[in-house]
């Protein structure tokens, strides 16, 4: 009952942003237009929904599909004890989405990770740079077109 409410409410409040809302294996899923992410997140973090936790933030590379990348956000609301998954597709030649660092503090590192692994640009991120890989690393390792066994030693191997 409750889950229907949030999804319906989101559809009503953001008719231009929410493309699809459904329930998948017990979790609510909303597919949105990337432009509306910040507005939607702002709406969800406040009362009465209180999705105060950004559980996870990641990206999926659907190589060969258009649009190619999909951002996946998992929010959690303590009072409602509910998870919400937000998905937004990104075009390969226009890889940018609004940063959530103004709302959740852990978005800082999470977005750096996605930038490092997929090359997604987060607009408004204070310090967007690689987190796991080193600065001189070329390419984005979790993209599907990055070869599994490609090596990029930072210091050249000794002869």
């Amino acid at each position: 009952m409750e889950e229907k409410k949030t999804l319906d409410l989101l559809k009503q409040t953001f008719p231009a942003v929410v493309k699809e809302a459904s329930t998948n294996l017990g979790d609510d899923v909303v597919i949105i237009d990337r432009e509306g992410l910040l507005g939607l997140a702002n709406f969800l973090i406040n009362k009465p929904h209180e999705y105060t936790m950004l559980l996870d933030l990641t990206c999926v590379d659907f190589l060969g599909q258009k649009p190619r990348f999909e951002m996946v956000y998992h929010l959690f609301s303590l009072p409602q004890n509910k998870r919400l998954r937000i998905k937004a597709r990104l075009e390969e030649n226009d890889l940018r989405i609004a940063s959530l660092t103004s709302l959740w503090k852990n978005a800082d590192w999470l977005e750096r990770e996605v930038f490092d692994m997929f090359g997604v640009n987060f607009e408004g991120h204070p310090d967007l740079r690689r987190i796991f890989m080193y600065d001189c690393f070329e390419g984005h390792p979790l993209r599907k077109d990055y070869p599994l066994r490609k090596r990029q030693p930072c210091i050249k191997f000794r002869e």
Partner: protein
Amino acid sequence: MTRIQKEARPDTMLLNMGPSHPAMHGTIRIMLELDGERILNSEVEVGYLHRGFEKTCENRTYFNLLIYTDRLNYVSPLINNLGYAMTIEKMLGVEVPERAQYIRVIMSELSRISDHLTCLAAMAMESGAFTVFLYKMKAREFIWDVIEQTTGARMTTSYIRIGGVRADLHADFDTVLKTAIVETRKVLKDIHGLLDKNKIFLNRTRDIAVMTPEDALAFGWTGPCLRSTGVYYDVRKAHPYLTYDRLNFEVPLGERGDNFDRYMVRMKEMDQSLRIIEQAAQRLQKTPAGVLAQAFEPAEAIKASRLKRIKGGVNLSPNLEGSERDKYPGILSADKSYVIPPKDDTYTTMEGLISHFKFFMKGNGIRPPRGEVYFSVEGGNGELGYYIVSDGSDRPFRLHLRAPCFHIVAALEQLIRGRYVADVIPTFGSMNMIGGELDR
């Protein structure tokens, strides 16, 4: 040039802590901007242990990638196994036998205790309490004896499989478990006596690195660190999995969210875990266990099975003890498409051999339906979540791990700002940074 090098005031000193500092629990680098002993700013650099876990998993089959999950949080590998196996089970809709569920509960609670023991042992040692370290390592040995006897390994267990567990419990399990519980209780009592009112320890932990509940939530903290700030959130209670809803336990909460509370919550959680283990062990005895039929030596069995199928099992090698065919109904799902066929059959029957091949052949084996799933369990550090996208093939299209300590360590910069250099060590210790999980 890193951020802090660019931003540092000219009259301050920049100091590196790590990556190879003895108190850095693995490899992490903290760059400190110091005014005397006081930390003005800091920058935490992670990624020294990055092994491309997610990339590797995307190129392995669902069955084969289980071993990589052992190497995430290497102090509690069983919980990582559990999280992964249950994510796939959620996707496939597999039913796990009750006995296997209780075994899983016991194993994950034992792992939780060993995780907390290791964290607090290191924290205490770095604050100068070496005795505490030795006591805790002693207790952990008893716990690892149980784990070793059940899984065959101390750290890289790979014991919890999709559909159940790898093998049934050892005949002596109850005795070993009882010893472990008794010894751990004794040690916990000693530790309470040694540290709770210890002035040196209190001075380094009380009211140091205080986290507010609001900030903890904004940082995505989960697990004991979040509960130390007084927020009631435990995955075992919020989204009960396995048989946790049938077991009685409490979720200890802290009040101030400082280093001492993080220590205390972990100590109390171990008590609760012991309680859970006792209850689960009691109920485990009531679940039906497979009884072994008369078994043949392998050579005999092969000879006898040339003409007709033999009755009874095969004496397997000690490595496979507990995973005989007769044991399967208790420990593994009845759905044959998700579990390895019993070795008794593989060695003696044609059909068994074929189904074994079919299970491991490229493009076969476990193939969850198209779609995505998120599932989380309560790990040693907090919510350990897996996000898996399947394209219907035998390899995950995308596997992402929600590592609890990634979110916790992200708050380190904020926690140590304005404190002294000496405060970094207990603060960092109380966070329980695990390199394998943090850097993946």
